[in-house]
């Protein structure tokens, strides 16, 4: 593990549960490492795997203040958020592997994972594509008086998409219970944020629409959690918000990307911004845990996540007969397969 930056927030924070936040982040980190391993072992369906290593604090910190019944959408780098909202790692890994036991029966994969039971309205492979859904979910929450919020998680790359601004405007105009969480990992694929915008102080854009907005340092998961607590409370009362979590994408855009567009020094510095190592050091420093306890926890998480790989490999792919299912509602006829149609046409007299 890379040496973390100096602890500048070592004092106790009564409102955050650092051991729990550490555990969530550690599970995300380990899960993502296993996703990488699944790919290396040729067991993942496809190569479109985007890991959130280095960004765990955004997921763990923000989700700590979401409730059952809150809804959310994520971007393509959303494994950590879903885990932090309570996903079953086995069903997640199975979905990433394109297996029938996955959350979406193997049809969605890493970038289209969803679970209505946990309020996950879907990960998205279109940059910014999942953002406006929270406007509708926010309208529905208000219409039904549920008191729930809807949260869009996306990366800095989505700040280049017009639909973000359309959605921010609607959220502010209609005072919806919505929060926009921009996980700024500094890169949209291979383009650094300062090469993509002249003003990289991203939360200022939200101020322009009248949203409560701030930026937190993603090194410190407690800072993220505290900001989330403030903004979520406001959103529940109809004050939509925008949070930027500054972090660093430790690895390439997707599994095959070795990041040739950035140099080793930058990566070395960037990886020092490690929220997991930072939280661990803080736990030790404050006496909230000792090294042996943390080692035991880490080992337990390693075992849990190792099992997800075994589980996934043991699962079967969805049967071909499911291919035409769920294009339309179950009570509707399935589309006619091309082969059936060809045979029918060529079988004439």
């Amino acid at each position, binding site marked *: 593990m890379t040496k973390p930056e100096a602890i500048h927030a070592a004092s106790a924070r009564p409102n955050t549960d650092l051991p729990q936040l550490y555990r969530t982040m550690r599970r995300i980190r380990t899960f993502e490492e296993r996703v990488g391993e699944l790919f290396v072992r040729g067991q993942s369906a496809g190569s479109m795997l985007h890991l959130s290593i280095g960004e765990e604090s955004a997921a763990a910190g923000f989700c700590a203040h979401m409730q059952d019944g809150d809804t959310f959408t994520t971007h393509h780098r959303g494994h950590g958020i879903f885990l932090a909202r309570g996903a079953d790692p086995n069903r997640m890994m199975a979905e990433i592997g394109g297996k029938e036991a996955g959350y979406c029966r193997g049809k969605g994969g890493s970038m289209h994972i969803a679970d*209505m039971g946990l309020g996950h309205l*879907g990960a998205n492979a279109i940059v910014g594509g999942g953002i406006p859904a929270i406007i509708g979910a926010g*309208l529905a929450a208000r219409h039904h008086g549920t008191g729930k919020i809807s949260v869009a998680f996306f990366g800095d790359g989505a700040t280049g998409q017009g639909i973000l601004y359309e959605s921010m405007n609607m959220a502010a105009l209609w005072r919806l219970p919505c929060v926009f969480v921009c996980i700024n990992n500094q890169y949209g694929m291979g383009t650094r944020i300062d090469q993509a915008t002249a003003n990289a102080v991203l939360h200022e854009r939200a101020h322009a629409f009248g949203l409560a907005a701030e930026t937190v340092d993603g090194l410190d998961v407690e800072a993220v959690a505290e900001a989330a607590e403030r903004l979520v409370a406001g959103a529940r009362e109809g004050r939509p918000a925008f949070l930027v979590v500054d972090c660093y994408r430790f690895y390439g855009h997707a599994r095959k990307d070795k990041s040739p567009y950035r140099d080793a020094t930058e990566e070395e510095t960037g990886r020092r911004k490690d929220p997991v190592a930072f939280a661990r050091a803080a736990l030790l420093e404050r006496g909230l845990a000792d090294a042996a306890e943390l080692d035991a926890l880490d080992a337990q998480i390693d075992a849990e996540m190792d099992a997800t790989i075994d589980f996934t490999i043991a699962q079967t792919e969805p049967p071909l007969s499911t291919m035409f299912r769920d*294009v339309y509602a179950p009570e509707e006829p399935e589309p006619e397969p091309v082969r059936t149609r060809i045979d029918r046409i060529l079988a*004439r007299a």
Partner: protein
Amino acid sequence: MALQELTYRDALRQALIDSMRENPDVIIMGEEVGRYGGAYAVTKELIKEFGAERVIDTPISEPAIIGAAVGAAMAGLRPVAELMYVDFIGMTMDQLGNQAAKIRYMFGGQIGVPMVLRTQGGTGRSAGAQHSQSLEAYVMHTPGLRLAMPATVSDAYHLLRMALTKPDPVVFIEHKALYTMKETVDLDAEPLAWGKSAVRREGKDLVIVTYSRQLHYVMEAAKKLSTDGIEATVIDLRTLNPLDFDTIREHVERAGRAMVVSESVMTAGVAAELSARITEECFDYLEDPVVRVAGEDIPISVSTALETGSVPGPQLILETARKLLGARVAA
């Protein structure tokens, strides 16, 4: 209920009112739908009865209007998103084609997107190249989206009412030239089922398959053909997805000749798909090639003459039918 005279516009409006009274989760959102009453007045004064929380005026943000409708539908509402002109559909294609259409499938059947996208298209108002198109092929080309295009006042009412009970996203394309068309209708009469085409006229010599405003041009042409001694069967598709091909097949097999009439452009359009299917599936019964009468492969002009010339009309349909049957029907 008694017969009443209604316009296409009023029938649509009545369908929205009845659906909203029946189901408190039906909401309308779009540009100018509330205070203004809709660019074509379909939502006129709905805001008075249902309030601004259910008839929501939006900013001019087509992608987010459709995207918000997707989220609302997933979260338990029954949104009607109004897209003022179908020409703006390109703005929304990600939310419509990548999100609404695919969510049920991508998520393994966990949830559908029961929304209606109401819009209007077609020529007839000298509205120019960006406000006059017939873009239904974009929708028909996207699995997961249902597509309804009413041609009559009665269908305007019933198809919209039915669309608002469907489990999947429905794109509902009205024709701008039909809003003032009147019909005497009994809205309580049992409508033809969703997904069934209507045989508007029966004749032994050829089948003309059409939908939306072109139905009226086809009927006009069919009447004139009848005085020539040519009797046409006219099929109004009503919904293009689901597509009722069984009715087409049945009639084409009987008549042996078919024409497809569509206002959308010829190349890779709806008429192309229909023509291909008729050719493939009714090949042994066809005595002549299936002829497409469709929009020219050009943009629509503001000039009334050029605009009218760009799309099929009664005369072209009539001439085409006469040529198709020419040699075989004794003068």
